[in-house]
């Protein structure tokens, strides 16, 4: 065992050996605390998938084409779709890497150290990383990036993650038009992000946070060359394995492998994204015609169509991607928590999974904590019980039900289908949800203001990440207007507890609050899937929908 390793690691190992925590928990915790992934995997007695992928002799050369929407990519720190980040990801990289088992590894970092109180994170930057222009990556580069995403003027979604431990809200002293004090946000201290030396950066938190490493893998958290000043394009400088050769919005992206990549040159010579538009049929047609070698994503229905293609291999990964039907507890119809409970009882989750996902999902429990999350606490299941639900409705004074607009969006189609499936089941308890399907841009405009709506949530390795973003009172993405002081308190508490066993106890309380009076009905956790041509090797589907082309190879025909 490493000398520099965190003092808590032996405890973890004991817990693992006694079966108190799972292998995965152990891996996650130990790596989080700075243990190298290789070592952690070795201690846990399983093979590191990263080394596994590299182990085989993958063929060299060739071109790989993946079908994916190619949207604007002006500012990587502002990327708001996984697709956008995929375009950038081949050129720019993260400090950390969370693998498909939700284990976070150092990446551009050599390693990190965490203080016992989880308030001081020391990031050791790899010394062998070179920008494409030949310059070595240094602490100033990293600090520039971290400070940039912490600037509210930039508008990165990382800002929301940093709020609460690096970023604080403050009163500007000015008044707005209505005379209310104007609030703004900033780094809590000049020392919040501190340069230790040329290759070491220290983060000083004002409150404990265990998910810092995961946050550094949040999709817009790219390390960019400060010289590019946040702009991205074919000429952008990056540390990544590829150089972007060409980019046309709505058409595609082309990359050329860097021979001087610090991590060893990619297997591929060139790599491409091909924009296939919003028509899900186009992806299938392109696969059928072998115009692309794979898709960045294919939903269960698309998979069902393509699994018969002889040249296609299906890839699946369990994720914490989900969709929630959320209610504003401050509107008339949902005021009474019994209505929300009734809605949770009205759902036949298996049926929805069978219908919408063709089975590719696992039932969720309305508290937005997935069984695959390390902090998950198992609770009794809520099977469908229409009678009970109806009674709850009647108790809440809605015996005859009510009618309300339910906001959703038309794409991706599984979201709309889920909406329809859920609305159909809610009919049985008298809730008539009139589906209002708004084009994406308009949907995002009313996203937080519509009283009754469906929202898809992306994969996050830790439940507290989502809970903090979405359900803490006044949180940045609190779309449900949920506000519960006890919940907030428990969540903050959980964020500072390292011991999974201990944290699970707090989590159980949180989950119960969510089930009792939470603002959401959550049907399932989605199994994420896609297709690749069988000639594609080294491909492993990442639950965050991330594409790492450097790991892939194509067998020549």
């Amino acid at each position, binding site marked *: 065992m490493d000398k520099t390793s965190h003092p808590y690691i032996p405890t973890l190992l004991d817990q693992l050996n006694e079966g108190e925590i799972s292998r995965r928990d152990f891996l996650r915790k130990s790596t989080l605390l700075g243990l190298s992934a290789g070592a952690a995997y070795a201690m846990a007695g399983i093979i590191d998938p990263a080394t596994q992928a590299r182990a085989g002799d993958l063929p060299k050369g060739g071109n790989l084409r993946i079908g994916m929407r190619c949207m604007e990519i002006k500012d990587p720190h502002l990327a708001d779709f996984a697709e956008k980040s995929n375009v950038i990801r081949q050129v720019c990289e993260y400090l950390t890497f969370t693998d498909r088992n939700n284990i976070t590894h150092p990446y551009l970092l050599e390693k990190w150290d965490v203080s016992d109180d989880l308030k001081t994170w020391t990031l050791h930057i790899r010394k062998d990383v070179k920008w494409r222009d030949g310059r070595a990556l240094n602490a100033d580069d990293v600090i520039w990036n971290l400070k940039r995403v912490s600037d509210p003027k930039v508008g990165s979604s990382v800002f929301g993650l940093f709020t609460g431990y690096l970023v604080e809200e403050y009163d500007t002293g000015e008044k707005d038009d209505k005379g209310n004090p104007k609030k703004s946000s900033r780094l809590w201290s000049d020392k919040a992000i501190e340069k230790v030396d040329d290759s070491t950066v220290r983060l000083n938190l004002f409150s404990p946070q265990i998910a810092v490493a995961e946050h550094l893998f949040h999709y817009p958290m790219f390390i960019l060359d400060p010289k590019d000043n946040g702009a991205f394009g074919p000429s952008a400088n990056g540390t990544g394995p590829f150089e972007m050769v060409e980019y046309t919005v709505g058409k*595609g992206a082309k990359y050329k492998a860097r021979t001087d990549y610090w991590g060893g040159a990619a297997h591929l010579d060139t790599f491409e994204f091909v924009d296939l538009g919003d028509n899900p049929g*186009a992806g299938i047609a392109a696969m059928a015609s072998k115009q692309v070698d794979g898709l960045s994503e294919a939903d269960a229905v698309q998979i069902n169509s393509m699994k018969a293609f002889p040249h296609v291999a299906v890839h699946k990964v369990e994720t914490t991607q989900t969709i929630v039907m959320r209610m504003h507890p401050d509107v008339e119809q949902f005021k009474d928590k019994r209505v929300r409970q009734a809605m949770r009882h009205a759902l036949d989750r298996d049926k929805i999974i069978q219908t919408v996902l063709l089975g590719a999902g696992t039932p969720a429990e309305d508290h937005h904590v997935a069984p695959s999350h390390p902090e998950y606490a198992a609770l009794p299941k809520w099977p469908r019980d229409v009678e009970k639900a109806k009674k709850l409705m009647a108790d809440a004074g809605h015996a005859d039900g009510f009618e309300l607009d339910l906001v959703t969006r038309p794409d991706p189609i599984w979201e709309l289908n889920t909406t329809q499936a859920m609305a159909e089941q809610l009919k049985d308890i008298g809730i008539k949800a009139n589906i209002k399907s708004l084009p994406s841009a308009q949907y995002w405009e009313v996203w937080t203001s519509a009283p009754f709506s469906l929202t898809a949530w992306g994969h996050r390795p830790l439940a507290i990440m989502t809970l903090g973003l979405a359900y803490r009172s006044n949180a940045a993405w609190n779309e449900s207007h949920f506000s519960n002081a006890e919940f907030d308190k428990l969540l903050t508490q959980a964020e500072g507890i390292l011991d999974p066993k201990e944290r699970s106890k707090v989590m159980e309380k949180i989950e119960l609050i969510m089930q009792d009076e939470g603002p959401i009905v959550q049907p399932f956790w989605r199994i994420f899937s896609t297709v690749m041509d069988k000639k594609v090797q080294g491909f492993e589907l990442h639950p965050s929908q991330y594409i790492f082309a450097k790991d892939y190879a194509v067998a020549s025909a």
Partner: protein
Amino acid sequence: MAIFVAKRLAMMMLTMVAASFLVFAVCEFTPGSVARKSLGPFATQEQVDFLTKKLKADDPLLVRYGRWAGVLLGIIPDPLQDPSTGLNFKDPRGAQYFGNFGYSTLNKLPVNDVIWSRLGNTAILAGLAFLLIVPLSIVFGILSGLKEGGVLDRLLSVICITFTSIPEFASGVFLVTLFVILWPVLPGTSPLDSEGGWSVPSQLVLPVAVLVIYDFGYVARMIRVSMIGVMEKPYIRTAVLKGMSTRQVVIGHALRNAMIAPFTVLLLQINFLISGVVVTELVFAYPGFGRLLLDASLFGDIATIEAATLITVAIAVTTQFVGDLGYMLLDPRIRLR
């Protein structure tokens, strides 16, 4: 003639002003502000408010329209490109030049960077379709109009009417099933590069076919009606009774007359094709103007919508103008009046 051209140009300007204003007004209904769209969904409200003020996006509709027009005409610089916005939007052409369509909030690029290549792609698609529609519809129209109610007329009419009744998405679905899935001889999508193993021409076959199927029947019907009218005209009788054969009569006397009325209709198809390709482009993932327009409309990207509107209206008015000129060439009766 000069007066005629001048009048038409004035009318074109007027139409473009009115059309762009109408679109501007319609876009008012879209929820969401330019500031929010420029900054992205995660920008703080504070930042959005700051930019809104900076862009004077709270000004009355007419003032904003005026400002947009000013940017377009190169009278004032594009406010979105002002460094003080912090948006870092930069048009290599500069912030102030004639024909500045502004910055696309959807693509975060100058509209001029995106729209022209898309238009070019669509022009290829529409152009090819047009090149097929013209002869096909003329042949169908003339043949069926030759003898109204005849067997050939009935047959061709049924084909034409049926084809015009098939929406593009339906024929797209049918064709993909047939030629991509069941009998894979053609590519299912058209990204317009040959690296997927299919040549670019092969990628054009299906989209062009879809457009032709939907459109040619309509034009053929127009030509048919015109042809029927012409064939009933006394001068056709004159020609026949001169001792000319049917072939001579059709080619020598009927064809040009029969094309006079449908000529405008035919040209209008350019207009229809340039923008009516939305569905086709979506089905075949064709990187064209129609899809851009659809995306921009859905996103509420006013700069792009306005640019697309002006371009389509300009094309429409220009084709009308060309139509009128062609009309004059075809019909000496209205020459230079």
